[in-house]
C-alpha cells in the first residue's frame, strides 16, 4: 500500500469516526427538537439545555463516580428548562423563538456560573463498545469505537417514528401540531401536550450535552459547544420532521464537522478554519435548495404554515 492510499483511507476513517462522535449530540438535540416541533412549538433554546446538560453531567459524574447518573441529571435539567419554555410560550403574545433565545442565554449563564469548579478535575467517562476489535488498522478501530449513547440514539429514532405513527400519545402530539382548533375540538389539552413534548425534547437535548462532556471532547469547559443546540432547528427542517432522517442528517453534519480535523490529521492544514464552516455552509445550501416561497414544506407541522 502506498503512502497516498494510507492517507486517503485515513481521511475516510477519520471522517466516519468523526461523523459518529460529532454527530451524536446533533442526533439527540435534533430528535428532541423534532418531538417539540411536531407538537407545534419551536424551541430555539436547546443550546442552553445542551450546555446545562454538559455541565451538570460532568459535575454529577465527578461527584458520584457514575457517568450514567450524570446523564440522568442532564436529562432532568434539560426537562426543567423545557418546562420553563413551555409555560412561558403558552401565555398570550409570547413569541416562542424569542423565549428560546432568552433561555439559551439563561441556561448558558447558569451552566457557566455553577460549572466553574468543574473545569479542572476529571470525571469518569461514559463507556464505549469496540466494534472494530477484529481489524488490524488502528484508524478503523478508533473509528469504530462506538459510544453507548450513540446506539441509544439510533434506536430511539425509529421508536420515535413508531410513536408518531402508531401510539395514541404520538397521534395526539401530531394532532396538536397540525391544528390547534382540531385538537381542541377533540378535547385534547393542547397546552399540556405541548408542555410534555417540550419537556421530553428538552431532556433529550440535555442528554446530548452529557455526551459532549462525558465522552467527546470529554471534559467541561466554557467553549464546549459550538452551536449544536442551535443547529438542531436547521437539522429538523433538513430531516423534514422525520426522526429516522434525523439520524442521517446528524451523521452528515458530524461528518462535515469532522472534515477539517480529519484533513489536518493526515497533514493537510491549509484551510483548516475554512473547513470549520463546512457544516454551516452545507446547512444553508440545503435550506436554500429545499425551501420555497410558495409551497409548504413537506412534513411541516400544520400550525407553522402561517409562519413559514
Amino acid at each position, binding site marked *: 500500500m502506498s503512502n497516498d492510499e494510507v492517507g486517503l483511507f485515513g481521511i475516510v476513517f477519520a471522517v466516519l469516526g468523526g461523523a459518529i462522535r460529532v454527530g451524536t449530540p446533533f442526533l439527540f438535540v435534533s430528535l428532541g427538537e423534532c418531538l417539540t416541533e411536531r407538537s407545534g412549538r419551536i424551541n*430555539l433554546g436547546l443550546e442552553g439545555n445542551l450546555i446545562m446538560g454538559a455541565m451538570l453531567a460532568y459535575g454529577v459524574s465527578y461527584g458520584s463516580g457514575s457517568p450514567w447518573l450524570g446523564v440522568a441529571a442532564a436529562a432532568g435539567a434539560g426537562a426543567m428548562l423545557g418546562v*420553563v419554555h413551555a409555560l*412561558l410560550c403558552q*401565555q*398570550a*403574545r*409570547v*413569541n416562542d*423563538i*424569542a*423565549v428560546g*433565545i*432568552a*433561555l439559551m*442565554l*439563561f*441556561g*448558558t*449563564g*447558569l*451552566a*457557566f*456560573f455553577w460549572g*466553574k469548579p468543574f473545569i479542572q478535575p476529571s470525571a469518569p467517562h461514559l463507556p464505549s463498545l469496540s466494534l472494530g476489535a477484529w481489524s488490524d488498522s488502528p484508524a478503523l478501530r478508533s473509528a469504530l469505537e462506538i459510544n453507548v449513547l450513540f446506539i441509544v440514539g439510533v434506536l430511539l429514532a425509529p421508536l420515535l417514528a413508531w410513536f408518531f405513527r402508531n401510539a395514541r400519545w404520538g397521534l395526539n402530539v401530531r394532532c396538536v401540531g397540525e391544528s390547534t382548533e382540531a385538537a381542541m375540538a377533540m378535547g385534547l389539552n393542547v397546552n399540556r401536550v405541548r408542555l410534555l413534548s417540550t419537556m421530553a425534547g428538552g431532556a433529550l437535548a440535555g442528554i446530548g450535552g452529557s455526551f459532549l462532556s462525558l465522552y467527546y471532547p470529554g471534559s467541561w469547559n*466554557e467553549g464546549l459547544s*459550538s*452551536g449544536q443546540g*442551535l443547529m438542531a*432547528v*436547521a437539522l429538523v*427542517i433538513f430531516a423534514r420532521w422525520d426522526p429516522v432522517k434525523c439520524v442521517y442528517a446528524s451523521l452528515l453534519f458530524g461528518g462535515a464537522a469532522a472534515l477539517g480535523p480529519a484533513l489536518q490529521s493526515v497533514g493537510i492544514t491549509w*484551510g483548516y*478554519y*475554512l473547513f*470549520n*464552516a463546512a457544516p*454551516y*455552509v452545507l*446547512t*444553508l445550501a440545503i*435550506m*436554500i435548495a429545499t*425551501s*420555497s*416561497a*410558495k409551497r409548504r414544506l413537506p412534513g411541516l407541522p400544520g400550525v407553522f404554515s402561517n409562519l*413559514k
Partner: protein
Amino acid sequence: MMRYLESFAIPVGALLVSLLLFGLFITVAGVNPFDVFASIYRGAFGSWFAWQDTLVRAAPLMLTALCTALPARAGLIVIGGEGAVVVGGFFAALIGIVLNGVFPPFLVILGMMLVAAVAGAVWIGAVGALRHLRGVNETISSLLLNYIAIALLNFFVVGMLKDPATLNKPSTYPIGDANMLGAMGSSSIHWGLGIGIIVCVVLWFLMRRTTFGFGVDVVGGNVRAAQLTGLPVGRLIITACALGGAAAGIAGMIEVAAVHGRANTSLNAGYGYAGILVAFLARHNPLAIIPVAILLGGIRASGGVLQRAHDLPDATTLVMQGIIFVVILASEALYGRLRWLQPKAQPA
C-alpha cells in the same frame, strides 16, 4: 401621555421583577444580594471611570441591537448581528490596511465606515432576500451566517492577512494609529458612542416618521394586508434587514477602528447576541435602544467588580441578562390586560 404609560410601566416593572429574581439567585449562591446590587451600581455607574467603561460597551450594543430591531419591525427575527459585526470589522480592517498612508485619515475612516456598512448590509440583506424569495427561515439562516463569518475571519486572520508580529492572538496588520477613531473631548470614550447615538436617532426618524417606516410596520403587523394594499413587501423586508445589517457592520468597524486597531477574533465577543436582548428590551424602538444599551453596557461592565469584590464568576452578569430577557418576554403577555394602565375612554 396616558397612551405611553403601559409601554413604559410594564418593561420597568419587569426589570424590577427580574432584579428580585436575580437577588434570590444570588442569595441562594450564598452572597448578600444588596452588596451585589451595590457593586453592580458601582461598577456600572458609580464613578466617571465606571461611566466611561459602560458607555464604551454601550456603543456597539446600540448598533447590534438595530440589527435585530429593524427586521423585527418587518416581522422577522434576525439573530445575525454577531456575523455582521465580524464581516463589517473585517472589511473595515482590510480597507484601513490598504488605504493607510494613501489618503488622509479622515477619508480612510470614512471609507472604513462605508465599506463596513455595505458589508453588513449585504450580509443581513441576504438573509431578508432569502426569506422573501426562497422562504428560508431568517432566524436559522442568520445564525448559520454567524458561524460562517467567524470561520472566514479565522481563515484570513491566521492565513494570508496575519501580521507575523501577533503571536498570542493572531490578528491582521494594523490599520495605522493615524486612522483610529479618537476619544470624545477629554474623556476616554471613543467616537463610537457618538456614531451609535446618531445612527439610532436617524433610524428612529426613518422608522417612525417616514412612509418607509410605516410600510415596514404594516408588513410586520400583517403581511397579507400589506400585499393587498400594494406595498412592495419584498423591498421593505430586504431594506429593513440591510439597514440593520449596516448598523451592525459599523459596530464591527468601531471595534476595529476605536478599540483593537486591527481585526482579530475579539470581534466575536458576543456584542451581536447581547444586541438581541437590547432590541427586545427596547421593544424594537430605535430611540429606546439608546438607554437600554447603556443599562446593559453597565451590567456587562460590572462583571469585573463582581469577580473582585464577591468572588462571583464572570458568568454572573450572563445569568442576570438571561433572567431579564426571560421576564421581559413573559411580560409581553400583560399588555392590554392591566386595567389601570389602559388609557381612559375619551368622552364622546
